[in-house]
């Protein structure tokens, strides 16, 4: 699936929803709980469950990124299921807040 900044995705195994903040573009395999994430408006496939090895919880309003900082996601609805890019789990991004300017 083509991932652009602003793209909204949902988990197929729980309530998790994210918005893409940063993306290198192109076709990327993004997963939540071991299952591919789908466009936020689509219905999940039936019968999917969270993989045991990918059962961390996501936190509302937090950013997640891959070790190479290629992609950044913001969680708009939290839930159970580790976020992963091409099989590698995403980690919580340490916020480096800019000073408020307007």
């Amino acid at each position, binding site marked *: 699936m083509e991932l652009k900044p602003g793209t*909204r995705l949902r988990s197929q195994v729980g309530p998790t929803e994210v*918005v893409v903040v940063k993306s290198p573009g192109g076709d990327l395999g993004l997963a939540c709980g071991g299952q591919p994430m789908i466009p936020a408006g689509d219905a999940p496939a039936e019968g999917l469950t969270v993989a045991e090895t990918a059962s961390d919880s996501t936190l509302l*309003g937090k950013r997640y990124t891959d070790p190479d900082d290629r992609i950044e996601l913001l969680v708009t609805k939290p839930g159970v299921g580790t976020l992963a890019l091409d099989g590698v789990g995403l980690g919580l991004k340490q916020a480096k807040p800019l*000073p*408020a300017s*307007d």
Partner: protein
Amino acid sequence: MAITLLLDLAESMDPERLAVGLRDEQITAEGLSRLTVGGAAVIVASGARSVAFIGVNGSAFPVAMFAAARAGVPIAPLNYRLAEGQLRELLGRLDAPLVIVDEAYLSVLAGADLPVLSTDEWMRRCATEPAADLPDVDDGDPAVLLFTSGTTAAPKCVVLRHQNLQSYVLQTVEPGSAAEGDAALVSVPTYHVAGVGTVLTNVFAGRRLLYLPNFTPRAWLDLVREEQVTFAMVVPTMLARILDEIGDDVPELPALRTLAYGGARMPQPVLERALRAFPTVDFVNAYGLTETSSTIAVLGPEDHRVALDSDDPAVRARLGSVGRLIPGVEGQVRDFDRVVPAGEEGELWVRGEQVSGEYEGLGSALDEAGWFPTRDRARMDEDGYLFVLGRSDDVIIRGGENIAPAEVEDVLLRHPAVAEVAVLGLPDEEWGECLAAVVVPATGAQCDVEVLREWVRSQLRSAKTPDRIIFRDELPHTDTGKLLRRQLPREFSTVPTPS
């Protein structure tokens, strides 16, 4: 979805957090969201394809902005101070607008065949209208239309799409990062890009939006104290007036933590006075353009402190910098097609998801690789600090040499007899253009043309010394603090040329 995502996320993170208005009004994030759902239903029922907002800043504006976004139509905040004819002209450029207008400006709509709601009526309807089916909104749809102030030409209508505004906020603000009780005081008008940006960034951060409709320094100081404002954004002329109002009697503003300024060039003497008057406050310089969805560079609090305390001229000069580009924005300084190295002057080009560069009816100003020419003269130092020297159109070419007015203005402003100054080029048979200065003398000061010329000559050199200087009681500004340079040449037409 679109920019309403920002409000929806803030609401889900802390629905009870106060979002807009005075503390007594108790409008929470959940309450604001509900008003925008009602407002969207009002807009959809009207059949309008855009919303025009003609009014002073206030809680009705953020409600209208998010309501229009939910309804999938762009909102165009207009300058209510324009003459009736100009306002009608701008309204005529909008697609089937619903007009939300303050009572005071209702007469502008007389005879216009448009659906109209007074601001008060708008807020009442938002509170009572049942929710309606709303369209799907695409990130690529227009969200906000802003008419440029037209200091150099007729107003152009800048199109900011959901993806531009959303990118700006997602790149620069942490959701819910404001502390409980934080409040932002907004003094810029709704039709300024900072008046749009402030709605999105503060709602997303969970910082209550508080409005000062008609700025006076006294009212600003009172509101900061009474409402325990923690963050305020002002344009440079406002900051100068606040400093003049308090004089040596600096008031206690214990809650105020951050003061951001932008919208026009800040005269360095004003900034230094402000830093000394409010030593515990964090100062932030924000630089951006309407076409870039507000801020693209920031000079932060630590930068200000280090520069003010430094004896190194290069570090101290950073007080006059707009800081470094924010995440998601790239910049280049170009001389025609050539990207110039650090330290050299040229025109600033920027690129990024938040950069729109698009004008209604005129198309996009971006080049093939997505770069936008800001038409601002600039240079960037080795560490990425950006110095904006003024509009490219304002550069004076005297005898083949490019002179940025700002450089000469800064020197003149350091003379104790000068309160305000504008430097411009006038046609000249010998040099092509000559340098002219309009000076507003400091109160009670004796100003002498030759003394001021010698002052500049001793610090710059002859080529940058104004050939002509005249004195005036004030300079013409837009109400958002931008100098109206194109009005200045006529000041010289009545003054005889010195022999």
